[in-house]
């Protein structure tokens, strides 16, 4: 499915909207279509395809389709639908200190629900492999969606973001790049580590989180939300990574498999301090009018995380796969 340049084939459409976009990737006209369910598989896959043109593109698709006005017009409509749903769902906040303080409280005990809690306590190897499959959509391009926002920041916020990004990209060493560590873990778990290999297997609820990151990254107007979602990822990551490390060790997995999450326990302990102090608070100082958006970005990511966790855990509770079935033929 891969070309020499590493671009995946266009995915299989899941409804009328993604069909229009995939047709357009293959040279068809961009037909008018209703956006449909903002969190649904169809819209999220369509948005994913529009966004991938800005990352690595698709095999056999001309690179200049990235700036095709008709496709951009459709993308804008999908983005507005998605964003309006999130804005309606997520309560508006205005106190960044209180929100950060609330996040730094770690719920404990046997009743805490969450994918990483489950994987630590009782998760099975097939469930871990599914979790990693979902997460591959982001981690194989880890830190890329946030890189778009760098030129839109100044001062402490910019320096803070770049410090974290530099670490995510391996501190100048390609072999330490987090996307590379993730790919190594995938191989250890006998999963395909090629970019885009599992897009057809993950539900819209998985694509939605990464789509939010790209949406906020690509629009200068949403730079506050981009910083907010990035800070949220960093603030909530370290304890979750620790739980995954413990779960993986309990499953008897070796160091090569555990390394990615192990690295994130320490890396994100640094990142959370920089993300909260330099990045989010720094931006709020220089552009106080963005406070609402910073909080919105974080809260929107949490909302999508919650949807993802509920979908995955309810499938597993029923003994079923949380992934879409493989395509036939």
């Amino acid at each position, binding site marked *: 499915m891969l070309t020499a340049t590493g671009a995946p084939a266009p995915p299989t459409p899941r409804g009328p909207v993604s069909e229009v976009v995939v047709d357009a990737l293959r040279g068809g006209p961009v037909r008018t279509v209703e956006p449909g369910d903002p969190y649904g598989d169809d819209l999220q896959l369509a948005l994913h395809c529009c966004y991938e043109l800005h990352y690595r593109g698709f095999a056999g698709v001309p690179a200049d389709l990235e700036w095709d006005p008709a496709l951009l017009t459709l993308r804008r409509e999908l983005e507005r639908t998605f964003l309006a749903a999130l804005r309606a769902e997520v309560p508006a906040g205005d106190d960044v200190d209180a929100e950060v303080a609330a996040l*730094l*409280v*770690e*719920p*404990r*005990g046997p*009743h*805490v*629900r*969450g*994918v*990483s809690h489950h994987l630590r306590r009782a998760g099975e190897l097939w469930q871990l492999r599914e979790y990693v499959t979902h*997460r591959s959509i982001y*981690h194989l391009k*880890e*830190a890329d969606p946030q890189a778009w926002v760098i030129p839109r920041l100044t001062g402490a916020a910019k*320096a*803070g973001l770049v*410090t974290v990004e*530099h*670490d*995510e990209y391996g*501190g100048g060493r390609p072999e330490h790049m987090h996307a590379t560590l993730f790919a190594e873990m995938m191989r250890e778990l006998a999963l395909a580590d090629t970019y885009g290999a599992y897009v057809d297997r993950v539900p819209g609820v998985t694509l939605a989180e990464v789509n939010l990151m790209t949406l906020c990254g690509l629009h200068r107007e949403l730079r506050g939300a981009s910083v907010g979602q*990035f800070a949220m*990822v*960093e603030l*909530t*990551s*370290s*304890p*979750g*990574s*620790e739980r*995954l490390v413990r779960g993986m060790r309990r499953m008897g997995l070796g160091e090569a498999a555990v390394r*990615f*999450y192990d690295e*994130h*326990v*320490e*890396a*994100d*302990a*640094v*990142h*959370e*301090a*920089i993300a909260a*102090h*330099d990045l989010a608070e720094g931006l709020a100082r220089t552009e106080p009018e963005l406070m609402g958006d910073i909080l919105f970005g974080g809260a929107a990511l*949490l909302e999508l*995380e*919650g949807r*993802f*966790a*509920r979908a995955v*855990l309810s499938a597993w509770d029923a003994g079923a796969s949380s992934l879409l079935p493989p395509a036939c033929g």
Partner: protein
Amino acid sequence: MENTVSDPTRMTLTDEGPALVTGPVEIELPDGRRVRSDRPVTALCLCRRSRRWPICDTSHRTKVRETPKDETDEEDDPC
């Protein structure tokens, strides 16, 4: 967090969390053992609760025991 040749090493103390040190750093422990960190910034544990002491693992966070009625589905994810 800048650290050029002419700049001194910067150490940032956070409110309740770790000390952030620009790296790479080598930390000598009381027993003479040395721990090396090559990251651009290292978080040093000051509260001694870290399972990875002297490196911070965010164990300084306040922990709240959750009851069955107060479930959360929010998930945390590495970045």
